[in-house]
């Protein structure tokens, strides 16, 4: 069965800042379960880190208990252990990140567990390091490692989350809040038509931010697409965002993001929820169909479809 899941938290606003979600909510993206794989419950749910018990870890070998992978991105299953270590390493201070819960073929629909997504929060006072390597069921609340951020912290109100107005944009796919009292059944989103191409002449009139997540990095960023005029510019920006801070042994040049020769591949999720390689279509067409960006490891994405299957293979054991 394929499932499209979104993860909900109490918050309703998307916002900017460098993170896909603000301090309050989880990553509210939906990851479309691979449609071609209907033979597993490769359901991916992202939940926020809120509560204070120790957190689960992906282990491939265990069958009992839900195992949770860490990190963002579709390839989360495969990168579970590795991602976790990366997260702990970079988790100095507190940060907002999301977890992927990967449900195996479990009878319990652990996917719908949003126990740790409630807007309640508690956090480990920094210097507590939670133990790693313990497996828990999804019903256990997950605990953040050293001083991670929680819902609603820091207490910055909606108006002052940068970029200020772009943060109020949410794509419809990310909105799962059903509001029964709204009899018009409109989503609480800014209409995407507001960002139609009719105004692309004067770019400063419209601003369009999409989230960018990189495999292995817990914090996503946002990039204003309208501020870029070409793929090269975009790649440059992303390079600065994600790679310039590393003591980069990778030495990834910006252009290499686009041509598949670097370790990372830039992909995007389009209006239909499909994961596409960036660079195939003309820039304007790309602008009109992109919903979010993802930088994935090259090894994980020889082709996109087989990647899912690989994961499925692993989890099926």
């Amino acid at each position, binding site marked *: 069965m394929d499932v499209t899941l979104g993860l909900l938290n109490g918050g309703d606003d998307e916002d900017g800042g460098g993170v896909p979600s603000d301090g309050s909510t989880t990553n509210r993206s939906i990851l479309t379960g691979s449609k071609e794989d209907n033979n597993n419950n490769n359901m991916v749910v992202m939940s926020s880190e809120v509560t204070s018990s120790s957190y689960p870890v992906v282990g491939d070998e265990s069958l009992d208990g839900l195992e949770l992978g860490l990190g963002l991105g579709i390839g989360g299953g495969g990168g579970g252990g590795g991602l976790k270590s990366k997260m702990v390493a970079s988790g100095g201070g507190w940060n907002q990140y999301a977890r992927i819960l990967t449900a195996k073929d479990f009878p319990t629909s652990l996917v719908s567990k949003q126990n740790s997504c409630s807007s309640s929060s508690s956090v480990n006072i920094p210097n507590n390091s939670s133990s790693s390597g313990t497996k828990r069921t999804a019903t256990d609340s997950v605990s953040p490692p050293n001083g991670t951020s929680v819902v*609603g912290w*820091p207490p910055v109100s*909606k108006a002052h989350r940068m970029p200020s107005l772009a943060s109020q944009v949410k794509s419809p796919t990310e909105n799962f809040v059903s509001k029964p009292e709204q009899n018009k059944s409109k989503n609480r989103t800014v209409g995407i038509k507001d960002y139609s191409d009719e105004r692309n002449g004067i770019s400063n009139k419209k601003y369009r931010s999409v989230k960018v997540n990189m495999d292995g990095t817990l914090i996503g960023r946002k990039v204003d697409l309208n501020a870029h005029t070409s793929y090269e510019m975009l790649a440059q920006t992303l390079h600065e965002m994600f790679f310039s801070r590393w003591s980069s042994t990778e030495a990834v040049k910006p252009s290499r993001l686009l041509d598949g020769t670097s370790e990372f591949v830039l992909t995007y999720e389009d209006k239909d929820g499909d994961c596409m390689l960036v660079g195939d279509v003309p820039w304007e067409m790309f602008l009109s169909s992109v919903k979010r960006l993802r930088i994935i490891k090259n090894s994980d994405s020889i082709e996109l479809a087989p990647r899912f299957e690989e994961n499925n293979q692993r989890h099926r054991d």
Partner: protein
Amino acid sequence: MNPHRKRAKTVDRVDSADSALVSSESTQMRPFPSKPLSVDRVKSVESSESGRMRPFKDKILFVDRVDSVESSESSRTSQFSDKISGFDRADSVEARVDSAGSTRMSRFPDEVLERVLALVDSHKDRSAVSLVCKEWYNAERWSRRHVFIGNCYSVSPEIVAARFPRIRSVTLKGKPRFSDFNLVPEDWGADVQPWLSVFSTAYPFLEELRLKRMAVTDESLEFLAKKFHGFKALSLLSCDGFSTDGLKAIATHCKNLTELDIQENGIDDLGGHWLSCFPDSLTSLEILNFASLNSEVSFDALEKLVSRCKSLRVLKVNRNISLDQLQKLLSHCPQLMELGTGTFMQELISGPVTEFKNMFSNCRNLITLSGLWDATPLYLPVIYPACARLTFLNLSYATLRSDELSNLLSHCKSLRRLWLLDTVGDKGLEAVGSCCPLLEELRVFPADPFDQEILLGVTESGFVSVSRGCPKLRYVLYFCRQMTNAAVATIAQNCPDFTHFRLCIMNPGQPDYLTKEPMDEAFGAIVKTCTKLQRLAISGLLTDRTFEYIGKYAKNLETLSVAFAGSSDLGMEYVLQGCQKLRKLEIRDCPFGNAALLSGLTKYESMRSLWMSACNVTMNACRVLAKERPRLNVEVMRDEEGGDDSQANKVYVYRTVAGPRKDAPPFVLTL
């Protein structure tokens, strides 16, 4: 009778009451009645939701003869003579209207008293007035035009309508403040419609409605627009549930609209067509603020609207308005006092400064400037001509660096209020300290609050620089990533007049980064030195010592926000015992448990509300509290997943005369 004789005055604490109310100690007056009038010790919430619960120990109201007021009042007759209504300290006496009132002194005609009281604006004073005696209670209720309701569930609209028959203006606040940070689930409540329904019959002439953190639907807005024919002013701050369709209804039907102020709302922005719905006949607009709306409005409609509304004094446009559009707008309304610009840069540069440099030269009344999105060094000089007169500059959407800010501020000598992004850094704050000696309010927002890798922003040294240069600082909101006890102590010494001190060290539980000690002494210094402190928000690594200081020294504290702080129940107990004037207490993620909660048993009725989330409170303690205090609503919000049912993860306690909520959603449990 000598109506015009002079009186020797000793004016006791009359607060902001009108000057007509003066004390009279003149020897020519008749002696006070031997049995002073007095006021019952206030227990009931009813008369003073918006004011204080406890009797006005410190207030003395003496009303002399009315001839000092409204001398044209023709109904003044010999009834007045030399009467005094004097009211002794209200602490320990009880009211007996008939005995002291009618037999010993002749009363003012009620209309006169109402005329006098009509001049009293402060709702706290009005509450005090209403406690004096039954006559005054009635006079006050008939003369009141504006009611402020700080918690929409503390009173029901029916009660309000029954008590105040002649309201023209209502201010309503709904959700707890932590709903701004997504700690309150959606559909929690605070729906404005029940209020509007009652008001439509009780106050058909309602003119102003100001809502904060209420749930507002388009249907409600339409209802408002259609049912209230004289409606003038709508202000929506941090409300949610409506869309621009609701604004269309307001624009279309409110023929006398003077104010439309939309801020920070969770709004469905379906397009900018609402602005075009203002009819051509509408010329009364004075305040228009749509800065927080995303979509583009018709500039043509906006320009025409601005041109024909000659009384427009506040205009805040959204980011889509370009610089040359702004210039055109300003040419139509040079009388503006407050301006929020649109985007402050142009793509096509063709001599920007020369083109726009006269934009502000005609705006002689401009004292507030905001917006300034995307402002760059190239375009900022455009505002220099207006800077000298500015008292409030909101740069919280402009990512300025220190040098840009410095250049700008050198022109802004009159600034009283300044909002910044922390991109300006400590150097930018040095400029603040050196350029703005009159500064009273500073807010520094984080440009990137959720990115923990950023090491930029402001630190303790920026704050200290400001405090050195701006001794008049009263209000500070400061987001930073590091702070020291010594710095805060210095700041307190430099600026002893703080009334609002909100310090957010963004990493929860972070100690003094130099000494590694808790930040207890920092806040200790603040509360010891700043005796006028009304509002405090604390952060960093804090033990119970902080709360001990707060309880001991912060005697004027009214609002306290606590997160990730404290070591034991004692912390909260200190505060509840020590802070006499505490009205709002909001706590999250602290180790306070049942003992702490119950230590405030007798206090919560004198407060507006208490919020505790992610603490160690159990349901049983909440039940005890609810049982002991039937006039409190003790509400517990359930997590979606249950978890441990005995833990009360989110507790919201508030006083009320309206009983338990009738519209509570399933996840809110009223005990």
